[in-house]
């Protein structure tokens, strides 16, 4: 009895939380965005951009993603639940695009346009992909690293993972650019810290211990870059140039303090905004390009407060 009553309570509470008018209105345009995560600041900035566009175009969005980026099957469950809600279009940032194809095909057959965001989907089902050109962005990071260390010396990479598209593209974009343009720079190692601050700290610590002459480290996402900063602080390793990726308060502070030379920022607000804008455009029958490049910037202590940069940084 107790359980029954409390369950009823939970359901009615859930109904209240659920902004019930939205659940009933069938005529409004509903666009669920299935992301790779929701707790990370990066994703919250994407969500903010998506909400901004939703307001502008008068559509309703929801934004969710699994607890961490390994939960491929949970993301597929989310996609299935989103499909049940009669969406007009779906925004999807695939953790493993091949695993999601049967459901995406189902959506496609039901005439629901799919907008890929952040990372591409290996399929022609999405009408477009709103994403950063991660290779080009990491290549810019390599140029900035070379400039900061004077075109010669040893560098290392702390990457977030070796399986995701962004992980591979950022690593290879950096390595390829160094190999092709800077023969005097040696990449001594590439290590992976799962984008986790603590793990990346340990990884960077080990790199610093093993390579006392290291001139610079590139951290390929927020967690990796902060890990590198932590390690350099802990080891008081002066003279190591750090180039980061993305933003977040810890990283922007490190850039302001000068411990991090600079970082590449994507435009997460733009990714969210462009995803919803593209969905609305697709619903209106407009032609869309295959890829919508949402852009990237390099920021340092000098330009961090420029309006153009400040607008795409998140805390």
């Amino acid at each position, binding site marked *: 009895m*107790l*359980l*029954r009553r*409390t*369950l*009823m309570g*939970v*359901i009615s509470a*859930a*109904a209240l*939380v*659920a*902004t*019930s008018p*939205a*659940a*009933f209105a*069938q005529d409004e345009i509903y666009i669920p965005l299935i992301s790779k995560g*929701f707790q990370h600041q990066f994703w919250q900035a994407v969500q903010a951009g998506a909400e901004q566009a939703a307001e502008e175009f008068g559509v309703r969005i*929801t934004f*969710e*993603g699994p*607890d*961490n980026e*390994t*939960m*491929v*099957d949970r993301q*597929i*469950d*989310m996609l*299935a*639940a*989103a*499909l*049940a*809600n*009669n969406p007009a279009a779906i925004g999807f940032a695939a953790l*493993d695009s*091949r*695993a999601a194809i*049967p459901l995406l095909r189902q959506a496609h057959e039901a005439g629901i346009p799919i907008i890929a965001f952040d990372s591409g989907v290996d399929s022609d089902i999405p009408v477009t992909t709103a994403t950063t050109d991660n290779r080009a962005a990491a290549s810019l990071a390599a140029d900035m690293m070379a400039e900061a260390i004077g075109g010669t010396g040893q560098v290392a990479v702390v990457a977030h*993972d*070796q*399986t995701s598209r962004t992980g591979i593209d950022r690593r290879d974009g950096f390595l390829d650019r160094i190999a092709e343009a800077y023969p005097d720079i040696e990449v001594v190692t590439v290590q992976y810290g799962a984008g986790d601050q603590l793990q990346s700290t340990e990884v960077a610590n080990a790199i610093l211990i093993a390579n006392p002459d290291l001139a610079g480290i590139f951290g390929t996402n927020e967690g990796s870059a902060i890990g590198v900063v932590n390690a350099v602080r802990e080891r008081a390793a002066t003279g190591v140039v750090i180039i980061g990726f993305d933003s977040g308060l810890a990283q922007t502070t490190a850039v302001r303090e000068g411990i991090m030379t600079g970082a590449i920022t994507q435009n997460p607000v733009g990714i969210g905004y462009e995803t919803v804008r593209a969905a609305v455009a697709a619903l209106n029958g407009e032609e869309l390009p295959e890829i919508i490049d949402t852009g990237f910037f390099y920021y340092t202590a000098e330009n961090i407060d420029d309006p153009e940069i400040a607008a795409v940084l998140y805390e």
Partner: protein
Amino acid sequence: MTAETQEKPKSYLAQLIDTGAHQRLLAFASLIILLVGFSIVSPNFMQTSNMIAILQATSVNGVLAIAATLVIITGGIDLSVGTLMTFTSVTAGVVLTKAGMPLPLGVISAVAMGAFCGLCSGFFVAKMKIPPFIATLGMMLILKGLSLVVSGTRPIYFSDTPGFDQISRGSLIGEIIPSVPIPNGVLILFIVAIVASYILGRTVLGRYCFALGSNEEAVRLSGVNTDRWKMAIYALAGAICGIAGILIASRLNSAQPALGLGYELEAIAAVVIGGTSLSGGRGTILGTLIGALIMAVLTNGLRVLSVAQEWQTVVTGAIIILAVYADMARRRKT
């Protein structure tokens, strides 16, 4: 609390009704109430496609929860079910994609690998006397690491094994009755449940499973080789994890080596919602199945209602506490 499992004369049916029937009724009623409640609040909830999505989402967690139930009834705990699932799916990936073996061999190898790893856990617990929590915690990490090592940290795709994705995604039922395309993964979950239920209720292994959880010392003193039976149960649970490994790999058409951590806790949650006691000696597969369904219905329903994700987690946690509290309150009365 364990008397019913030790009294021989009662029939299997009578035992079933005795052991936790109330809890199952309660859990079942909650499940129905959740289903009805969500259907009233959201018109999109009660659709065939969404019900199938819920069942599909239950299949992997359900099978893992069944494995966890067996170990929990013995008074142990298995924290390695999630990463063992991952490791067996990677094993199938290596056998099928890298070695190019035929499909049945891939399935058999995954189940056999599951049984072997389960046997190892059982050995640590029974022979080396390591507490189950620690032994399986160690196993959880070993298997997580091995999954990454064996796969080379990359997902292994089954694109070269035609029919592999049909193990979970295909629908034999749908071919016979096209209006209810229940995926094979769900069918497999129910088959595993029926077999596990039979083993628990009707075989010597099942009887020792309950007996070990109730009073291991008494069983040992009566001359039973408890170590051997305990290892057998861990091995059986491991083999069931192997089935879960095939299910998830088939559903994703790939073996994802990084996945698996956290799945053991969801499996244990389903077990306790279903009325199995964490102190051992008591539990049912049917209860676990209902527990897994409750979790899937709750997650899906809150999603369909567009409840903020942070709150979904809060609600799930609250439900676990309520379910166990209700069970204990009822037990104190009787």
